[in-house]
């Protein structure tokens, strides 16, 4: 179902992150039904979809927080499906979880220090984060609970960056934030990408995702309904894939995942 899109990107070499036919259950409920994706180095890959489409489940499974029923996650050509989340972080798969999830009884700086404890070698340091977000240095002694939502999200981003990820997973950055704040945080992406990262993000805000992404994939009820470059998909296609309108999705039958 994704043959044409992948063919186009094949010159980028081997994918940094690959998900093959991932099936994940929450108890009896099938949250993901055979989803596949390939993220190439330097991309901003966006997963879009409505509430409950399985976006967060997909990201959390890639980070190692959920165990898939079947399917596999490959990172840099190696199967990491069986690895615990902390082992994946050590290899460079680092996630900014939904809802920030900062350490509430720790200061801003302590949050960053925890992020840096098991860091890989790389360009990001706490000092580098302070350079990028000047206000953070002045408020480094404050508890994160005293920060605004946007500031908390920025600290969460900083905590992930200081681990020097190779692929950064962003789960619903925009959740609960004012549009202007969301714009500002996404505005930082080019600077972050310039340090050599690859980004896989999940976003409910479709227009935001279309603006920043180099590749998008739409999920509906745990299945892929659309995939391609933002420039190649029409608004109608996205709308149809997002809401599951009949006769719309050109990306093939939303049935069991087919081999790429």
């Amino acid at each position: 179902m994704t043959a044409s899109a992948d063919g186009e990107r094949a010159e980028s070499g081997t994918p940094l992150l690959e998900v093959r036919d991932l099936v994940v259950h929450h108890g009896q409920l099938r949250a993901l039904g055979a989803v596949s994706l390939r993220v190439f180095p330097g991309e901003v890959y966006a997963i879009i979809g409505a509430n409950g489409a399985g976006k967060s489940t997909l990201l959390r499974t890639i980070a190692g927080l959920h165990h898939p029923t079947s399917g596999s996650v490959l990172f840099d050509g190696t199967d990491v499906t069986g690895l615990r989340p902390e082992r994946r972080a050590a290899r460079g798969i680092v996630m900014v979880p939904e809802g920030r999830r900062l350490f509430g009884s720790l200061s801003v700086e302590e949050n960053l220090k925890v992020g840096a404890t098991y860091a890989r070698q790389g360009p990001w340091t706490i000092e580098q984060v302070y350079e990028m977000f000047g206000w953070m240095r002045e408020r480094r002694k404050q508890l994160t609970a005293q920060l605004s939502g946007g500031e908390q999200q920025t600290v969460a981003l900083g905590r992930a960056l200081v681990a020097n990820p190779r692929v950064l997973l962003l789960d619903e950055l925009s959740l609960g934030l004012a549009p202007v704040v969301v714009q500002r945080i996404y505005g930082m992406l080019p600077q972050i990408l310039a340090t050599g990262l690859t980004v896989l993000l999940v976003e409910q805000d479709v227009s935001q995702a279309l603006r920043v992404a180099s590749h998008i994939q739409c999920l509906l009820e745990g299945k892929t309904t659309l995939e391609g470059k933002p420039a190649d998909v029409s608004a109608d296609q996205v709308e149809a894939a997002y809401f599951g309108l009949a006769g719309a999705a050109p990306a093939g039958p939303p049935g069991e995942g087919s081999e790429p």
Partner: protein
Amino acid sequence: MAWVNAIIQGVLIGGLYALFACGLSLMFGVMKVVNLAHGDLAVLAGYFAIGIVAVTHVPVLWSFVIVVPLMAVLGYIMQRTILQGALDRSVLTTLMVTFGLSVVIENGLLQFETANTRGIGVGLPLLTESFSVGSIQIAYLLVVFFATAVIVLLGLQYFLSRSKYGRLIRAVADDKEAAQLAGADYRHVFGIAAAIAFGTVGGTLLGGVVLGVAQQIGAQISLSDEVLAGFIVFLAVLVLRPQGLISRGAQS
């Protein structure tokens, strides 16, 4: 003067209670484990000291050099094996497991060491004596307890607030999943917390002191009221300050 005496004795014995309590509070604060075997483990450590002195004939105070690391290793292994296994099922399972552990330790000690009271002479006659301030008699041993408690609690406070592992322990206590995403193996951090098992949250010392004072004042009124006074304090705290004597910092 009897009242002043009761308060002073209470504060000093409170130091000993605080030493016991900080281990409990660390395990509860970090892992949400109510360790029902905590008291038994403390008694077991005492028997280890007796055993080590009997076998090696080292001076009693030296036995601490062996017993403290021994208990730390035991704590780490226990956490990584049976307690983590119980935690993976549910927090309630840990109650059953630590209760079982408590029964095993108690009966094991009864079986092999009898129910007789045991003591170890420290070899320092000073510790069995007391000094007087005005008309108040203060036992040196109580002062040692208290001083030890203060040093241990301050040291722990410093460790938790300044060191790398202290920071990780607090991070895991806040959100173990987020800590995993930052690369921390929370099972290892749990193990370290259990190894310390001499924990503190600011209020622990105060809590121990309040309890100690209450019991001494109760005993002052009538000897049989000592235990009653302790329970009255428990109830009063649960009703008036259920969040703790010194409430924790803002939660996210």
